[in-house]
């Protein structure tokens, strides 16, 4: 028999109200039901006006991130049973403007992401006849963890630096820059360093470390940023002691 749990869901209806409020719903659940299933139950049976994003319901698309009992979570990978007997609070991700109910605008991240050139940069492409760019398993392993990012924004939501200084380029954008920097086919690390060595780049991070803790894909953005700082420091030392063209 299904048990029941109460959900307190943050609502924001811009045409009616200027602040967020909470609506409470009771939903039945079984142990395999995720928070997202609870929201779907509300939308299908109780209140069709509830707005939220989701797609894959399996931790791949990165669109279902919300704040569950104060913690940023993928709602498709967070189980109702773990919060029994409730009530459970579901709010939009922190640090982003809310468009409606549980939907936030992540345009800021999308614009920052482009700045770090998250693609393979080559000064010259080899001709097709030259064949593919081969890579050893070790070379793949170098950047693979960083390539697992699903842009879910849990890390931005957990980062107090981003909350206080929204110009900070942020954890996932830096992790994704590292994903390409550490790829042996890429030649764009100098371009990225220009963006990331700015004050709002890697040096904005003061290593709170929460981004790594909340990341559902074990990307370790905090690690990416600290590694980058080391690289940047070594680079500037080199430039200082052995200036090119001097």
């Amino acid at each position: 028999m299904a048990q029941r749990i109460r959900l307190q869901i943050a609502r924001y209806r811009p045409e009616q109200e200027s602040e967020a409020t909470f609506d409470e719903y009771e939903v039945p659940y079984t142990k395999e039901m995720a928070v997202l299933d609870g929201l779907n139950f509300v939308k299908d049976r109780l209140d069709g006006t509830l707005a939220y994003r989701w797609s894959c319901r399996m931790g791949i698309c990165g669109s279902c991130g919300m704040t569950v009992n104060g913690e940023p979570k993928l709602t498709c990978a967070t189980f109702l049973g773990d919060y029994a007997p409730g009530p459970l609070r579901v709010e939009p991700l922190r640090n982003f403007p809310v468009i409606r109910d549980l939907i936030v605008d992540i345009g800021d991240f999308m614009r920052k992401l482009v700045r770090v050139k998250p693609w393979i940069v080559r000064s010259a492409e080899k001709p097709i006849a030259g064949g593919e760019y081969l890579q050893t398993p070790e070379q793949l392993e170098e950047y693979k963890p960083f390539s697992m990012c699903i842009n879910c924004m849990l890390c931005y939501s957990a980062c107090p630096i981003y909350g206080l200084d929204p110009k900070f380029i942020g954890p996932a954008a830096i992790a994704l820059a590292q994903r390409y920097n550490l790829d042996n086919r890429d030649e764009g690390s100098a371009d990225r360093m220009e963006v990331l060595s700015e004050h709002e780049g890697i040096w904005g991070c003061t290593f709170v470390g929460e981004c790594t803790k909340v990341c559902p894909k074990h990307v370790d953005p905090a690690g990416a940023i600290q590694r980058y700082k080391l690289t940047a420091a070594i680079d500037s030392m080199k430039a200082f002691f052995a200036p090119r063209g001097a």
Partner: protein
Amino acid sequence: MEQTHTYGDTPYHPRWLRRRVSTYWWLWKPAYLRFILREGSCMFVGWFTVYLLLLLAALLEGPLAYELFLAWSATPAVLIVNVVTLGFVVFHAITFFQAAPQAMVVRLGRARVAPQTVLLGHYAGWVVVSAVVAFFLLGA
């Protein structure tokens, strides 16, 4: 209306809800509190360096200055400040060591050295340096 929160590169939109970060955000999670403690306590780390420089200056000046420095260090106020400083410096050392395996990727041949080993290496280094210092202090 005055805009309190710009959200980086997000254009102003009259209907979007912009929530302000609470002044007490650092009380939300123990990790945030630890972070603020670390940031705030850098004053003590700074003091630690200043104290060390004062000690060196006294040493250079001669035995009398050194004696005076020691007497001053034994006054309750300086003692209390230094005990608190020691606590924070150890806290900084530990959090720094914790960060080290995340910042450094050490390789032996083709294999990556396990993060725990990097961490242990740092602690081992600490023990060795402390032992050398203790040897000079106690052996002398």
